[in-house]
């Protein structure tokens, strides 16, 4: 790890000023940043500790039925806030499927959004990586790329964004509140992360020094609470990143779907909202054929970036299953194995062995 200057500002204004210097980075829990610094992948010259900034650790339930999540709210505290989990169950389920209990106790909402890709070549400083070292090439192309992107990738970078939390958030129209030197602004989460294009080093819409102060979910998002699920396929049952994941949320009006929300994780460098699939579902009668058609629409633009064509069909099946689970209704309590296809009660039909 490189040596750095450590500052602990007392106010948001001071933090923004301190972080606007070139080479500075915010430190939240450090569960991603310190890992990257230990590997020499990122080498900030100054760390601006945000952990003691006032007012950022609150979960505020808003009059419109929405919620405002301070950027320092710990992942575990949000998932276990009963009011929050009741209104936004797919978000709680996604949080509980991520990392480990220890990491969730530390990790913050803001840090989760800005965690970096898990591409192994990005982590290995001996490899060529356009994201880590612009212009150096991409060793993932032609390398071990089973788990890389199938949507939105470019010739320069085929990495994915690893967050679970962001997937239901983007489905539910979350908004990011940002503070910078010019004051406060907000942005839909959908336009917060950037696709790689030919500048994969530019990962988010944040300008230097900008601080995430909060995330907001609109009241309308709570209208999906009766039919909202997150499903995450991993290479082991827990404590692993998604190979593919999906958030599915439905508003059912009598026998038809009033409105649907779908987003995918593990498939692109951003949480991937599937609007074409949502449109295909609106007004339809829920059922296996309709869900499969929506899944086809969700992956309409997908193409393999290497040895990962399987992820396209896997993602279709994950979307179909997530929709089936959502239509069946949100369970009273998050399953013992959150978001797992192996959790009891997640099989698509009674007596069916839970294979994806």
């Amino acid at each position: 790890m490189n040596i750095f200057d450590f500052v602990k500002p007392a106010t948001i204004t001071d933090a923004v000023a301190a972080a606007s210097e070139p080479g500075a980075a915010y430190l939240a829990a450090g569960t991603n940043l310190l890992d990257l610094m230990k590997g020499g992948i990122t080498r900030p010259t100054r760390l601006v500790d945000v952990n003691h900034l006032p007012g950022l650790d609150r979960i505020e339930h808003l009059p419109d039925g929405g919620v405002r999540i301070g950027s320092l709210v710990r992942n575990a505290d949000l998932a276990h806030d009963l009011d929050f989990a009741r209104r936004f169950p797919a978000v709680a389920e996604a949080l509980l499927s991520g990392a480990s209990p220890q990491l969730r106790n530390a990790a913050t909402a803001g840090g989760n959004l800005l965690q970096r890709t898990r591409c192994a070549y990005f982590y290995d400083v001996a490899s060529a990586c356009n994201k880590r070292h612009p212009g150096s090439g991409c060793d993932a192309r032609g390398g071990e790329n089973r788990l890389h992107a199938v949507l939105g990738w470019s010739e320069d970078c085929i990495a994915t964004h690893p967050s679970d939390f962001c997937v239901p958030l983007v489905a539910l129209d979350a908004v990011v509140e940002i503070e910078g030197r010019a004051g406060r602004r907000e942005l839909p989460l959908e336009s917060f992360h950037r696709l790689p294009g030919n500048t994969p080093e530019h990962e988010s819409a944040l300008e230097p020094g900008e601080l995430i102060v909060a995330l907001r979910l609109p009241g309308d998002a709570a209208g999906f609470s009766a039919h909202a699920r997150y499903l995450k396929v991993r290479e082991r049952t827990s404590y692993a990143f998604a190979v593919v994941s999906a958030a599915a949320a439905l508003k059912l009006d009598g026998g038809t779907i009033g409105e649907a929300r779908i987003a995918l994780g593990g498939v692109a460098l951003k949480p991937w909202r599937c609007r074409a699939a949502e449109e295909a579902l609106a007004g339809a009668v829920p059922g296996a054929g309709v869900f499969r058609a929506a899944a086809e629409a969700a992956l309409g633009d997908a193409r393999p970036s290497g040895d990962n064509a399987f992820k396209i069909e896997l993602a279709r099946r994950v979307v179909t299953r997530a929709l089936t689970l959502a239509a069946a209704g949100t369970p009273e309590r998050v399953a013992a194995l959150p978001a797992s296809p192996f959790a009891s009660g997640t099989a698509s039909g009674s007596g069916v062995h839970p294979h994806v």
Partner: protein
Amino acid sequence: MSLSVSLTVNGTVRDVVLDDPRVTLLDLLRERLDLTGTKKGCDRGQCGACTVLVDGRRINSCLALAVSHDGADVLTIEGLAQGDELHPVQAAFIAHDGFQCGFCTPGQIMSAVGLIQEGQTGDDPERVREGMSGNLCRCGAYAGITEGVIAAQRILAGQNLAEQNLAELERKQVV
């Protein structure tokens, strides 16, 4: 650059001057305070060997910067027993064969203490296993660990109940 931190570690206030901000909480415990019970496995948040309680919550001390935790209350494996009397989780790990080589054990035990305080699992072994999934065991002592955690949880719940009953009796001035 000289930075100082003041931590309460196992009930004692410890003031430490760091000559470097890079020191993790894990390295501070092991290298500066000679509390080597907390283990360094991966040093990257992947194994749980370094689990300690900070302000009552289990975290990975290898991914926590010491300077960022100034003022924190830290509990490590060394602070668990009361003199010669083992903490119920420690006793249960012995009774249920919750370890073999013992390297992961301090982290497993601290994680179990945190899990029991979080109170999310009940007696459901699947929830306990998931709740302990942040602690890897190379020897594969998982079966004993799960049994030990459930047994210790029952004992601690009984102790809490006994304490509550006593407090209630004291309130009513029966004892």
